């Protein structure tokens, strides 16, 4: 009967009696105004966007228990009633077909459905066996910047104190670890000093390797609201952001450190520095001054490919600024001299006293929605609350707060992300737990990663989606609830803590990561000792508030009630203090070093490791597009984003293409010493300089990380994604037929 009814409907549609008017009807919703009726929700749930670290307030529209709409949260201080295209369509990520719904265990080569109990029993059992056989450090954990702070805090305790391995790191090491390292060295602690409002209040904004228009479009509002500013953009590509600039510095790839040193050189030479600030609040000026003597405009012009004229112009603009803002992202961080470059940026701000005042900040714009929460609470590169593993005072204090024996705290940081992967290759890490990240897309030099993972005795992947390139390799897949399905907090780039709320129930048997961690603790038998009385994320948050009290990242004054009543607030917020609309670190000139003074650091420029030449004549640059998010695990589930950006492309300058006989839309391969990425659509464009090519990294089908290299910053361990030597060839030239994307 139903089939008959459906056939009748189909017939009506084919002959045109029915034009699906019901599906496409409009209505006036109280909360939406006139709009597509199917998009009018029963109610809205206020939360925070789960993509990038801008940290926009967002509302999820729920209708019949399903997320049907997303809109900006009007009252949120960050996004001013706007969202980027990813945020506007974020509800599609939840209801996607590709969600992981049940635990899957590999039995005789195939992933098969198992109960949660069997899954966790197996996981703990296998981890314990590996640790018993190869030592506790043979277990590695790779987490993410996507979880809520409560989950980072919980996972950190679970891994470090219960599993007893410190080989635990986040994918944030692929992203902003360099900023963390740089801040720590220059200011004595991590923590971005400024805030978004500074973009609006600065009279000179210098963006280095930061393509805000593509990656943080919502922040462009702050620039737009500041018509009097001078915007300087240093980027080897003519990015969308470079098009917004008053002065674009089209420097050679990764010559930014030389440029910044050159600017500092000019400012010192012409006394455009703040001697008073330097004397009171910094150490190391004389050494730096001597060191920078070598960075003459002639030398810097040679390294950067910029004219001396334009270098002077940039230097004088910044040097004369009343409030100078320096923003950077991955152009700086994805580099083997990233930490040094961050130090040079901090030097420049310190030399000119451009810190701690409205509009004045050296500001790292972070990547993931809760990379900051992971920096502060996750127990990876430091102990919770920016405490140092090596500092006896920090250790004693934390042990006291956690009521544990200090000896249980690791003596030093464990292996960083890339070193964990190298250790899987060396078979020192034998079991791995990957949480909410997709390294089979994002990790450089994929060949090595695959080799390492194939060495593992047991691989657990906990993710919101299955299959992903990473879950496909897993021995155990744990289905996780994701954004919109769980509760907690995110902290954004400007240290603003926002509430994350549950709008709908997770699909199938998927569980919140928080619940999974507690269930693992239960299996390990440490739930009562480490997480006594915890049932919901707020319990973790309240402990985290206590742990962070008195630290630079002081959350003690931030409770769920305050977040509900007041909206998103910035740390530090000591208990009892009133939230400020825009807080800045180091306004008092006191830094987190032993002597309270910031360090001026001599940071030397060196060429990037794999220079172009011979068989590999091009410098390959990688980056993003506004429609996609990182590994595209989420955004490939959003039809409109896939429509707008369906596949990867390779940008090449038309002069190079002509020499190689390549045409627009040709399918080409990119080849490095490590691998080959096939069938990429070629785009001839003057956006990219001759001698360079550019490719987005989101697409596993054409993964640029097949060719990127294993080269890492010595301090932060962040990969040098942005430059490697490649050549470009037509795909399948032997077939005689030119493949094309036309």
């Amino acid at each position, binding site marked *: 009967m139903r089939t008959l009814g459906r056939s009748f409907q189909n017939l009506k*549609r084919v002959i*045109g*009696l029915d*034009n699906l008017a019901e599906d*496409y*009807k*409009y209505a*006036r*919703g*109280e909360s*939406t*105004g*006139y*709009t*597509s*009726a199917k*998009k009018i929700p029963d109610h809205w749930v206020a939360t925070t966007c789960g993509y990038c670290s801008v940290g926009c307030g967002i509302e999820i529209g729920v209708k019949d228990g399903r997320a049907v709409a997303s*809109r900006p949260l*009007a009252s949120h201080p960050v996004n*001013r*009633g*706007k969202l*980027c*295209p990813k945020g*506007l369509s974020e509800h599609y990520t939840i209801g996607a077909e590709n969600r992981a719904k049940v635990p899957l265990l590999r039995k005789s080569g195939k992933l098969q459905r198992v109960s949660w109990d069997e899954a966790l029993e197996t996981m703990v059992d296998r981890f314990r066996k590996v640790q018993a056989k190869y030592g506790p450090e043979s277990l590695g954990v790779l987490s993410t910047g996507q979880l809520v702070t409560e989950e980072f805090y919980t996972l950190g305790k679970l891994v470090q104190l219960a599993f007893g391995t410190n080989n635990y790191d986040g994918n944030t090491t692929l992203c902003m670890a360099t900023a963390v390292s740089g801040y720590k060295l220059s200011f004595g602690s991590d923590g971005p000093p400024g805030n978004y409002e500074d973009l609006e209040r600065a009279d000179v904004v210098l963006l280095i390797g930061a393509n805000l*228009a593509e990656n943080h*479009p*919502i922040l*462009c*509002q702050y620039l*737009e609201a500041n018509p009097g500013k001078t915007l300087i953009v240093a980027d080897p590509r*003519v990015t*969308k952001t470079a*098009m*917004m600039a008053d002065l*674009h510095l*089209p420097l050679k790839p990764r010559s930014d450190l030389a440029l910044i040193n050159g600017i500092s050189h000019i400012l010192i030479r012409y006394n455009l520095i703040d001697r008073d600030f330097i004397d009171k609040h910094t150490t190391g000026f004389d050494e730096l001054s001597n060191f920078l003597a070598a960075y003459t405009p002639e030398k810097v012009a040679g390294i950067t490919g910029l004219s001396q004229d334009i270098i002077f112009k940039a230097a004088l603009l910044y040097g004369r600024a009343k409030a100078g803002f320096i923003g950077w992202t991955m152009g700086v961080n994805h580099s083997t001299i990233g930490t040094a470059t961050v130090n040079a940026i901090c030097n420049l701000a310190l030399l000119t006293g451009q810190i701690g005042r409205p509009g004045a900040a050296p500001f790292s714009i972070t990547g993931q929605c809760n990379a900051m929460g992971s920096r502060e609470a996750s127990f990876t590169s430091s102990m919770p609350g920016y405490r140092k593993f090596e500092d006896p005072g920090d250790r004693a204090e934390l042990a006291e707060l956690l009521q544990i024996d200090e000896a249980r705290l690791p003596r030093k940081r464990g292996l960083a992300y890339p070193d964990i992967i190298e250790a899987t290759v060396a078979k020192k890490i034998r079991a791995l737990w990957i949480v909410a990240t997709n390294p089979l897309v994002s990790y450089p030099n994929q060949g090595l990663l695959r080799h390492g993972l194939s060495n593992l005795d047991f691989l657990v992947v906990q993710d919101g989606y299955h299959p992903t390139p990473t879950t496909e390799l897993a021995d155990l897949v744990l289905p996780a609830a994701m954004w919109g399905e769980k509760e907690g907090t995110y902290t954004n780039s400007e240290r603003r803590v926002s509430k994350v709320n549950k709008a709908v129930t997770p699909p199938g048997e998927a569980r919140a990561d928080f619940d999974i961690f507690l269930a693992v603790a239960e299996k390990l038998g440490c739930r009562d000792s480490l997480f006594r009385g915890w049932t919901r994320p707020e319990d973790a948050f309240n402990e985290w508030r206590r742990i962070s009290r008195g630290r630079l990242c002081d959350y003690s004054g931030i409770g769920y009630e305050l977040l509900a009543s007041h909206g998103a607030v910035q740390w530090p917020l000591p208990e009892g203090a009133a939230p400020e609309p825009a807080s800045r670190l180091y306004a008092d000139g006191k830094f987190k070093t032993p002597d309270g003074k910031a360090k001026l650091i001599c940071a030397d420029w060196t060429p990037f490791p794999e220079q172009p030449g011979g068989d590999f004549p091009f410098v390959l640059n990688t980056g993003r597009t*506004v429609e996609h998010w990182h590994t595209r695990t989420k955004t490939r589930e959003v*039809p*409109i984003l*896939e*429509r*707008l*950006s*369906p*596949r990867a*492309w390779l940008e090449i300058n038309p002069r190079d293409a002509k020499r190689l006989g390549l045409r*627009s*839309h040709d*399918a080409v391969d990119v080849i490095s010493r490590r691998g080959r990425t096939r*069938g990429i*659509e070629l*785009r001839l464009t*003057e*956006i*990219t300089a001759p001698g360079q090519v550019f490719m987005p990294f989101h697409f596993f089908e054409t993964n640029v990380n097949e060719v990127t290299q294993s080269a890492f910053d010595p301090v932060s361990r962040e990969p040098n994604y942005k430059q490697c030597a490649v050549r470009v060839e037509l795909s399948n030239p032997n077939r005689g037929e030119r*493949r*094309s*994307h*036309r």
Partner: protein
Amino acid sequence: MYLERIDGLTTLPLMDSPLLYTAPAAPSVRGLVQIETSPRELIPSRPLAEGEQYRFHFDMTKCIGCRCCVVACNEQNGNPAELNWRRVGEVEGGYYPHTQRHYLSMGCNHCLEPSCLIGCPVEAYTKDPVTGVVVHSAEACIGCQYCTWNCSYGVPQYNPERGVVGKCDMCHNRLSDGMSPACVAACPEGAIAIEIVNVADWRRDYLAANAPGLPSADDSISTTRVTLPESLVPDLGRVDTNRVAPEHPHWPLVFMLVLTQLCVGAFVALWLMSFNGAGANLKIAALASLTLAGLSLGASTMHLGRPIHAWRAMRGLRRSWLSREVLTLSLFAGAAGMFAAVLFLGLPGRFAAGLATAIAGLAGITCSACIYIVRARPAWFSGYTVAEFFSTALLLGPAFVRALDQKAPSALLLVSVAGGVAQLIVQSGKFLWLSRSESFELRSSSLLLAGRLRTLFVTRLAILIAAGIVAPMTAVSPWTIRGAFVAAIAGELLGRYLFFVSVVPKNVAAAFASGGRKAA
């Protein structure tokens, strides 16, 4: 509770309210993306006066190409991802590092002379007398897609799921509630706004409707005002010009056009032959032609998204060539039926019936051709289209009669050969014209024919020469003549297929990689 059903999309329920077009001081409702920092700057704050209409303003200096407007529009209208009533194109120019890249966000331009509206056979389009918004009714629409050929900006888009077209209506139902359109509200940069334009002033000077990446506003007098950056480089242009894909073939129309033209040619031949008193012998040919005409007209409704409503297609006679085609070809079919009956039954009035058939048929072919003479499809916008259609009639009609009736005068074959020669001249002339053109669309059509479609194009010409010109002059056996005729039909069908797929429409600049087509 809040679900207030709005019947029909063209109605403005609050139209009679005097306060209709004033923004309330504090809107009490917000939309999916309807939270604004400064609504007053982005939508008009005063009512429209006489002689004014709403229009879009797009500020190219502000747009950062984030495509929020596209996503917001799709959400607002509940459209599937494949349909984008608002699109963002890219233009690029200059040389590194002095490269310029800009974006062009376009919905409907709510033109003063909307070509979609003029072409629509069912009057599904209305230009709102108060707001000037060009509104399309999904209820009235029969899915003929003629508007999608008529618009130089590619604004109306066919939704195969629904069988009807849809387009941007400036969210006029939101505007009337004092709320911004979805795209306006979603734009983080405030690059899109609604403003008021004086229609007469704009008609005098609409230069600001032109921009790099946009077809000329001359076609339909677009009302969208574009603010361009200062000192644009001269070579600033579209980035999608190397990605020209063949258009939809519209198979039902391929058959309909070729077969109706064949029938018209056949009936004109029959009528002329009937002067010789060859009446009795023509019965079979007349019946066959009539059947073919009926079949092809019937089949043409398969092209519609809503064939059951085909009868509505004569509503737009005042303006639409499609309505006129439907009328003239229906008259032709009717007259041909009468003529066939007269022939068959030996009744008087043979001359008059034949004359009526011929006139209606020739008018039908003319109307058919006029449908395709649209500015938005430059390769069709020429006399070649008329010539091509008539050449088909001349080539196939007489040959059909001769193929069915061996006793018919062999002069018919000579006429057919003349048709073949005419078609060859038309095809070669058109190709030369296309390939020598400076315009992107015409050049691209020729590049399609010489590139991706080359085999088909060469085959089409070869069939035309062999079956349309050489064979009729040399063949003697009836079966060779019939074989040549069948081949000639195939050739014309192939030609008409190429006519549809090789046209490169005018459109707004697209992004470099858009569309969702799979990678090679």
